[in-house]
């Protein structure tokens, strides 16, 4: 079974802190994604990566950066956390370049910024 793991289920950080959210997948997938999920807004794509060291902005990249140094690992970085970044963060991976593949999601990290 494909497994996507995220480093923390719950995280509480203070405003201004630098925050790292880690995601690891074990199926050699080329594509990895970071979403945030907020009530009434659905899933919004922050960044994605289709290869090592490659990254593409999603719909809401402001305030975030990413790193993909190894194929299996995709990190989301909040350079200076703010309260409006309190959210559920979901990582996902997918093989291939076409849209005919399902995405596999991690369990999510619920981040609270105080």
């Amino acid at each position, binding site marked *: 079974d494909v497994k*996507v793991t995220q480093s923390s289920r719950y995280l509480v950080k203070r405003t201004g802190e630098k925050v790292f959210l880690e995601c690891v997948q074990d199926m050699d997938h080329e*594509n990895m*994604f970071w*979403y945030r999920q907020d009530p*009434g*807004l*659905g*899933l919004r*794509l922050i960044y*994605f990566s*289709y290869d090592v060291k490659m990254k*593409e902005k*999603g719909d809401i990249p402001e305030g975030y950066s990413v790193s993909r140094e190894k194929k299996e690992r995709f990190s989301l970085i909040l350079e200076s956390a703010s309260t409006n970044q309190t959210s*559920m963060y*979901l990582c*996902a991976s997918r093989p291939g*370049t*076409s*849209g*005919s593949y*399902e*995405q*596999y*999601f*991690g*369990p*999510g990290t*619920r981040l609270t910024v105080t």
Partner: protein
Amino acid sequence: SQQGEEDPQALSIQEGENATMNCSYKTSINNLQWYRQNSGRGLVHLILIRSNEREKHSGRLRVTLDTSKKSSSLLITASRAADTASYFCATWGFQKLVFGTGTRLLVSP
């Protein structure tokens, strides 16, 4: 935006009843996918229907697709309490899936 919109936003039924959720989208698609999310967890893929298919079944799930109306429906038959979750449709955009806002389904025993 290609974002899908699910309807209704919330649905409450009794065990054994059928649940129908609808999804509308805005642009042409190659396929449409449905995902389930249990409370506070990640999403799980349920089913994919291609643009040249009109109906697809998987266990108690039945998905229809009407590309002329840019809409899809997900039917869960003989629902169970364990079906309580949020359900999302997703369409393929440029290199990425675009998710709708979801339908929250509550199945009461």
